[in-house]
């Protein structure tokens, strides 16, 4: 199963439309897709507008691959669960976000080698077709909490 998630704040039709194209080419694959209500109507799956934290964890757990916007909630969850993830950043020029921070996030995490990045819909399609399933592996795993240096600094300041 491929879990596609795009946050609860704004639509991300450019991603959903590309996933719909991919789903059309891979009829044997199951897609669970969460997106804020959008103008684009997908042909190959139902879109869930909002999912509970429990359902989110359950889909994350069952998924063979996560495809998402470059939102930190999803990125952190995927790294904790050691799941392969491709992120496609929301871009300001399409009004997909208020600023360009998702592109910055994607670039930094790409440079760290922590996740797969598709900078636009064409790259997403190309990466999926050439890499699925064998080359789409988790690239990095993180633990359950913040770095000790951050926690120690905060602890010292609080007490």
């Amino acid at each position, binding site marked *: 199963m491929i879990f596609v998630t795009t*946050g609860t704040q704004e639509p991300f039709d450019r991603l959903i439309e590309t996933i719909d194209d991919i789903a059309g080419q891979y009829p044997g694959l199951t897609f669970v897709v969460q997106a804020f209500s959008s103008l684009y109507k997908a042909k190959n799956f139902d879109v869930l507008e909002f999912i509970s934290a429990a359902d989110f964890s359950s889909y994350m757990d069952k998924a063979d691959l996560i495809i998402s916007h470059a939102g930190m909630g999803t990125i952190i969850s995927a*790294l904790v669960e050691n799941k392969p993830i491709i992120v496609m950043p929301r871009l300001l020029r399409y009004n997909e976000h208020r600023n360009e*921070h998702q592109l910055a996030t994607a670039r930094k995490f790409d440079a760290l080698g922590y996740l797969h990045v598709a900078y636009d819909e064409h790259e997403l399609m190309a990466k999926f077709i050439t890499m699925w399933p064998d080359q789409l592996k988790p690239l990095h795993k993180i633990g359950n909490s913040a*770095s000790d240096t951050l926690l120690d600094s905060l602890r010292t300041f*609080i*007490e």
Partner: protein
Amino acid sequence: MRILAIASIGGHWIQLLRLMPLFKDHEVTFISTKPNLKDMVKGHRFITIPDANRGKKINLCKCILSVTWHIVAVKPRVIISTGAAPGLIGILIGKLTGAKTIWIDSIANAEKLSMSGNIAVKIADRVYTQWEHLANSKVIFSGNIL
């Protein structure tokens, strides 16, 4: 120590939860913007507030009133936020009530501090960035939430 930990739903909230080892020996109240997040902080007090969507002044007013009300009621000694707007409001009200205030700018702000973070620099007792190249005399880098 009575701590108030505040963040909006999504990445901000997930980042706040990664500070859990810090919270375990304290009396912590969590504040966020969706009621179903309560399940993620079992054993702690949880309060839902209205989100302050930019552009809608009425929501901002509701959020400010709600945050103020809860800070007055909880009387925290420390207020910590990972963003976004409701957290900044918490820092501001917290400062006025004499609490120690800590802003941790989201790891998503990798090329510059967020708009809220830049305001927090002027108000909060401590501001952290999660990227070393963004640290300066007023903004601390000491690791990140990864």
